[in-house]
């Protein structure tokens, strides 16, 4: 396993603590980018949390990813205000810009992952997307490309 030391440290930090499953998996995901099957088994063995509980939590919450993700995460807001301001067009524009098909969420060069998000709470700037931790508002289909180019 690639990140054994880091993951062991995370397990040690949370082992035996009540309610640890979610923050533990969040930290593991931060290290590995997503939750690998073998990592989940390893975490289960190390922490004593049943693998069924780990998998149950990992599949319940949308922030946990079971597939590899790109270096930059693009979250296109699909909240109400964005929806009525053309979020769908923005989503298609990003998809087009990254050459992603409907069943793909990560570019082949593993640079970007595109996901939808329920609401980023910047409704006054709709339509909005978040790239990593930066929020960009008042998007147009033409402006998304220029913004994405800034993330190498």
């Amino acid at each position, binding site marked *: 396993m690639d990140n054994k030391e880091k993951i062991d440290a995370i397990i040690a930090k949370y082992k035996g603590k009540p309610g640890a*499953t979610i923050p533990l998996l969040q930290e593991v995901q931060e290290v590995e980018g997503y939750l690998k099957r073998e990592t989940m088994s390893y975490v289960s063995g190390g922490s004593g949390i049943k693998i069924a509980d780990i998998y149950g939590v990992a599949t319940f919450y949308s922030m946990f990813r079971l597939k590899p993700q790109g270096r930059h995460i693009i979250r296109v807001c699909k909240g109400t205000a964005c929806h009525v301001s053309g979020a769908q067009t923005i989503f298609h524009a990003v998809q087009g810009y990254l050459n992603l098909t409907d069943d793909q969420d990560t570019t082949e060069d593993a640079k970007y992952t595109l996901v939808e998000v329920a*609401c980023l709470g910047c*409704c006054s700037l709709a339509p909005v997307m978040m790239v990593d931790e930066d929020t960009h508002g008042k998007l147009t289909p033409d402006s998304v490309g220029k913004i994405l180019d800034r993330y190498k």
Partner: protein
Amino acid sequence: MEIKVGLASCGLAAGAGEIYDAIQKYLSEKDIDVALKKTACIGMCFAEPIFEVTTDDGKNITYGRVTPEDVPQIIDSCLKNEPLLEKAILSPDFDCPENENLRSQNRIVLRNAGHIDPENIDEYLENDGYKALEKVIKTMNQEEVIKVIKDSGLRGRGGAGFSTGLKWQFAFQNASDKKYVICNADEGDPGAFMDKGILEGDPHSVIEGMLICAFAIGADEGYVYCRAEYPLAVRHLKKAIADATERGIIGKNIMGTDFSFDLHIKQGAGAFVCGEETALIASIEGKRGMPNLRPPFPAKSGLWAKPTNNNNVETYANIAWIILNGVEEFRKFGLDTCPGTKAFALTGKIRNSGLIEVPMGTPLRKVIYGVGGGMRFDKPFKAVQLGGPSGGCIPEHLLDTPVEYESIMKTGAIFGSGGMVVMDTDTCMVDIARFFLNFTQNESCGKCTFCRVGTKRMLEILNRIVIGEGKMEDLDTLEKLAHQIIDTSLCGLGKSAPNPVLTTIKYFRDEYIAHIVDKRCPAGVCTALLKYTIDAAKCIGCTACARKCPVDAINGIVKQVHVIDQDKCIKCGACYEACRFDAVIKV
């Protein structure tokens, strides 16, 4: 002179970071001695980026929609005590366009947001911060605190509207060696950002409210359950907790008394249902966030089966104000049955979109056309959506409904947590119903069959209607399923998921019929029912549309009428936007 830049997440998204840098650069280049400070959101998101100047002669001006190029001129003019007013939006000293906007609001929970630096505990302390806590733990007993909150008539701002004081009393009365206080900051409704505004702008007010609650019910540990989609709110909250701990406001023997309290942050992991209190508790316990049957209520058996009080961000943000100003002052705002104020996230096709706070009972019309400044475009008002995916669409003829729990409930919508999305005639009500149902369908935890399967069947029907394959009997099926889901779901998600469909069928039945019978979308939104054509009389052959078309569906040569190939057209609307001669028609 002092300058404050609004650096909340919407300000940052609008470019406030660049404004801050430009000001800093100009000040250092010219060696100007001015205090440059950070603050959060004053709520006027429509005018971001925003900064506020206090001149040496004590005048105060807020500038909006500024660009880095505006910075030198504005600063120079303010240094001369002759502030430029061209981009001024707010000022107590000058006549500015948004003065009335702020004057028509009453700010309790947003009292500090956009005025103080949320990352600086001293600024909170200077504004009466933690004085209410000191008063409570040094001069009052638990029953007295609960009585004040009960008498104030404060009702839960998360949407259900239950008496906060009563809730505290239940948790107080259930004796236990351990109790918890939880703050629900899992603001999941799309179109709602009141709690984000409070957490980013004034995190200490929430912490103070939680501390007072903990003292009142006898708890010594608490959690803020915050949405992971709000990284800035989490950062400000973390800083606030660390600073308060360092000052002895959180921790052992607070302010030298016997009262101790520890506070943790739990970040959500993306599940809307976790806004429901039993699901939220399950999530803090590290489980899948699925709701449980109540009773027992959390006040009796909550987090780790201990008595737990759970309120939302806005509710806690009211507490310190009530303690300091008294029940009578609080009851001056709002209605007898529902005192105080309410923060709303006003968005959609409204001119002044942003975060506002008005007295309970203010008529919707006053919110939209007063504080909200009316419609943003020249299209007429169609509906206002309240309560997010659990709420409904309220039409024009009900705009005199006061914003208050029971009156809104009567319309078929719910009061909700404060999201208010204004829609004009360009919004399709069937599409909106489908949008919300798609959301709740995705977010249903799957525990109750009708919520899990029933919403799916309803969504399938709506998906058929928007592509023109609906049948009239679908409307009856939708209504029947809706009532079954409401009757048989355990938690609020299922019980309210059909509301958007029911209210749109109730108030906009014509629109459903247009989709089903006439195969037409009156708002021109449902793409399957749309067709773009070019008006030969208006087309001058400028080729703008053809150049914009992503699928090369537009044929024609320069200076000749263009034609859209309907087989190739994906109905993206790019040509419609591109044409400067109104020659592209949407039918």
